[in-house]
């Protein structure tokens, strides 16, 4: 069964550094999402992406965040200048034209 894959599984970075989290959605899916889960808290929506543009973003998704689909397969989340409070598990998800979201296993980002 097709899967959403995320790399790396763990990322440690220093405060102020840029990080790029990578996701390969399921190949025929049209809608792409990033969610995050700070340790011990609920899963929060960050951004949705459709037709090569952001369709919706949350208040968390400020100017430090950006998303890109640079080719036909990857979907990336960039954080320009990481802060301690960006430490979280980041989940990528994709879906076709149904309600079913397919999630990756997440990237655990630790900002020191």
């Amino acid at each position, binding site marked *: 069964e097709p899967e959403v894959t995320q790399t790396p599984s763990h990322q440690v970075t220093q405060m102020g550094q840029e990080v790029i989290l990578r996701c390969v959605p399921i190949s025929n899916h049209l809608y792409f999402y990033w969610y995050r889960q700070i340790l011990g808290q609920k899963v*929060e929506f960050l951004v949705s992406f459709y037709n090569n543009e952001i*369709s919706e973003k949350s208040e968390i998704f400020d100017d430090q965040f950006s998303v890109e689909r640079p080719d036909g397969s990857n979907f990336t989340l960039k954080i320009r200048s990481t802060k301690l409070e960006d430490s979280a598990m980041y989940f990528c998800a994709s879906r076709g034209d149904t309600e079913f979201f397919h*999630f990756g296993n997440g990237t655990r980002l630790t900002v020191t």
Partner: protein
Amino acid sequence: AQSVTQLDSHVSVSEGTPVLLRCNYSSSYSPSLFWYVQHPNKGLQLLLKYTSAATLVKGINGFEAEFKKSETSFHLTKPSAHMSDAAEYFCVVSGPTGFQKLVFGTGTRLLVSP
């Protein structure tokens, strides 16, 4: 805006006893509702979904949930808990159609003792 409330942050059961994880939703339109499970250090796995078909929904691993519009509830149940059911469970709402996003509840940690 839609939202879900999970009434218990932790639920403890003994192996072989029934499981009940409670969820109430709020939505101004007919919602789609889901339960996701997250095992430690793992991703989010879909257990079951409700999308305005049958109100009693069966999912994987023996779980089921019943949509009750009058009570705005979507509680998750299982007749007999197994040790492997220990995990975090999220009640989730989405809609309307289009660029819909998922809105997660705060989660319920299920603990299963021998």
